[in-house]
């Protein structure tokens, strides 16, 4: 059974939150909204994550993780040269979904900000988990790869859910379109390798080329 990982997260990165909220310059009113929302959001968060470190063998486009296989050229490429692989699921819990649902009806500005705070928190959580597991193994983590990225179909969610027992362990559910609830949840795979990846911008892998925040 996969161990849990539930550390204390570092303080909220307000710059990142504003970026997710589509705000390049924040005035007093926006900053007030942010601080108001972050208090409410952080009280609602009930995070938890679990992960498994697995052996990895790549044959052609097929990644064999011992317990299961996934066939995807892009995943095989992302995991090339890795010693092992890690599958994990992380969630911020239903409390935040409830808040977003509430303010989606009553105050879209607040809902937007809560959504952005959730995005920042879950990303931070996943980053921390990568660091933790790679340190445990004495290796370096690659970037995360989730079902739906590149040619890895979203249906791979079902496999990850079964392997990690996401329903039972974390209370995650998949709906008919394979979207997760709580919505602020991530399932992903990353590799562990002996040398770090050269630092590349997160944006270079994203296909949304008209994003106003796109980096070089």
């Amino acid at each position, binding site marked *: 059974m996969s161990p849990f990982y539930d550390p204390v997260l570092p303080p909220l990165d307000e710059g990142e939150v504003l970026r997710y909220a589509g705000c390049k310059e924040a005035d007093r009113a926006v900053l007030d909204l942010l601080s108001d929302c972050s208090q409410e959001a952080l009280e609602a968060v009930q995070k938890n994550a679990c992960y498994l470190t697995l052996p990895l063998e790549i044959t052609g486009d097929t990644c064999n993780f011992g317990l299961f296989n996934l066939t995807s050229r892009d995943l095989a490429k992302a995991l090339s040269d890795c010693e092992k692989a890690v599958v994990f699921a992380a969630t911020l819990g239903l409390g935040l979904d409830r808040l977003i649902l509430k303010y989606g009806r009553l105050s879209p500005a607040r809902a937007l900000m809560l959504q952005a705070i959730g995005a920042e928190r879950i990303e931070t959580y996943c980053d921390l988990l990568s660091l933790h597991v790679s340190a445990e193994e004495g290796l370096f983590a690659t970037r995360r790869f989730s079902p739906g990225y590149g040619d890895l179909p979203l249906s791979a969610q079902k496999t990850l859910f*079964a392997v990690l027992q996401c329903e039972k362990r974390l209370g995650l559910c998949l709906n008919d379109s394979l*979207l997760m609830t709580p919505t602020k949840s991530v399932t992903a795979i990353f590799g562990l390798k002996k040398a770090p990846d050269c630092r590349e911008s997160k944006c270079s892998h994203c296909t949304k080329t008209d994003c106003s925040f796109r980096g070089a």
Partner: protein
Amino acid sequence: MNFQTYLQNHFVCLDGGMGTLLQARGLQSGELPERWNVTHPEEIIAIQQAYFDAGRNVVATNTFGANALKFGAEELERIVMCAVANARTAMQKSNGTQEKFVALDIGPLGKLSKPLGDLDFEDAVSIFAETVRLGVRFGVDLILIETMNDAYETKAAVLAAKEHCDLPILVSNAYGADGKLMTGATPHAMVALLEGLGVTALGANCSLGPKQLRGVAEELLAHASVPVLLKPNAGLPCVKDGCTHFDVAPDEFSEELYALIQKGLRIAGGCCGTTPEYIRALTAKQPECLPLTPKTETVVSSYSHAVTFGDEPVLIGERINPTGKKRFRQALVEGDMDYILNEGVRQADAGVHLLYVNVGLPEIDEPQLLTQAVCELQAVLNLPLQIDTADPVAMERALRRYNGKALVNSVNGKEESMRAVFPLVQKYGGVVIALTLDESGIPDTAEGRVAIAQKILDTAKTYGIDKKNLIFDPLAMTVSADNRSALVTLEALERIGRELGCYTSLGVSNVSFGLPNRDAINGTFFALALERGLSAAILNPHSAEMMRTYLSFCALHGLDENCAHYVEHIGNYTLTATDATQKAEAVSGASDLQHAIIKGFCERAGSLCKALLETVAPLEIVQNEIIPALNTVGQGFEAKTVYLPQLLMSAEAAKSAFEQIKLALPQDSGASRGTVVLATVHGDIHDIGKNIVKLLLENYGFTVIDLGRDVPPEQVVEAAIAHQAPLVGLSALMTTTVPAMEETILLLRKEAPSCRVVVGGAVLTREYADRIGADRYARDAMETVRYAEEVFA
């Protein structure tokens, strides 16, 4: 002996884990264990026989996930048939001499209930019902609903069982380390819900070991009148050499459970990681159980918590109610749920403990609207609801969908009323407000009202409704019509408490009907009633007078330690302060309103607009203040000097100004620029973008029919035709849901060819939009507004 009879006088020992034992016998990861009933019956029988041999009274069938979501009808039938046969065979083969029973095991469906998830409540009831019908047909002795981590899904399962059999129903929930269900319910709230539904026994299983579940078990024991059950895991899992182990050994497990049996636990077993060895020591001890102690607390609940009557006065917010409120009636007729939600949230923020809900209007479909209001309120607010309707059909539908134990408004001493209401309470649970009137009207003496209360109590008893589930309303009548009416009410109130031992509630503000400055008399009457023992009051929590009375009463009655609550809140209710701010706002000028909207000051925009309306015509304010402000912000957004959060804050400020305009305008005279239907497409649950577009469109004068999220194509088409909407807006966030968008467009083209379609959402691009046949791709909310202006030009 049947199970029910056995349970009355005996400690009952349930079985233990199944999954880990099946894996040890070769069940592969990813293989569905329920299929083993058919393919490996000998393995299932061996495990279950071992449990019976170890002295367990109840073995559950291997049907945890046997439901119509996972299996086709034929396979499901075969699985349940074999599962029951296997357990029966195990029972016959066992040499154990104890009483033995077979329970139909029912686990969660693995999907989350709407609105947070996509599992419809009635669908869940039907899916559970299918399994129950099969189990009953193949001959189980009782139903065991277990490992449920959501109160709403638990309710669906219990209703399915109640509606399809008369067998005993045991319900066990999975609590997390915080002592609550995943969706937030406390053990106390679950006791209220489940006893209301009439289950045979209730308790907890899975997720944690016996030590960690002790607190949950104690809370259940403190509140439950029915037997409590506990099936913990064998402690917490740890991974050793790649294998999972649990950290509690059989003896320790037995000892923990034995300690709880001393406190009243009557049914025990094990869950994950436990084997027949666990609690063998316990069964060897042949523990005797304590007698059951019926609890007398009067309690209602929401999805998250219970509210108990009697300790402190309970405040019930009265504002969700169309009586005498023009704006509210308009919202109901238009189906404007956001307005109703907003009334709910404002009262919750004002500190009420319960929300009163009444949506009765002659021109609306009350069963439909009441159910919708209840569902929407319970999705965003965690306060228990007092559901008020005179229509038994509306009451039944609302109670069925209510996620908790409701306060039911109301029954009275008329035969007809009791015949209509009591069966609903008997089936769905609830505390009923009982009005002390009958066929001959409202007695004008306290004796008369107490006598009716007694009659209602006696009749309730014949329906199996205990007196703890009745709260009496001795009826506050206006003192302007009869100057002794308040005295009669107060006397009846006190006597019902003293002579019948029941709690009381009043719609306090009725007392001042027809009088000027009603708050003054309401506040004093409230204080008098509290002093005579009033348990709950339906009131306006925005009335400073009422809240001052409440805070003062609690402080004076030893209910507010160190007067802390009083000190913290009384400042909000200082009359002079509110007067002063209103005056200050009244003198401020017009340009201030524009400024407030541009800066996104929501409350200020509302109050400035209200003040301005005293001297300026409503439409003039719209033309000269609100629209110019919106234009400034909208153009700023298009020029990228104003960003999304600011745009939205301004839009919300404009909306609160518009609210004041609506109040000032005669109904239906607000000229709409046209009707737009909005929806997030089928399968997609992300609706923030759609909500943003809605807000902006409304700001710019369009009428929006918001169909919500996860909307099937047929529903979009239906709405477009019904509202004759020239424009439909569709949103999708995920690549996987874009096909649903395409399907919706195709159906619109066929059924409503004149309708234009604008699409948006994170994964969409102009090319993508063209490919699926949309008329326009809108990059953001402002682009949608501009396109709507084009369409409606």
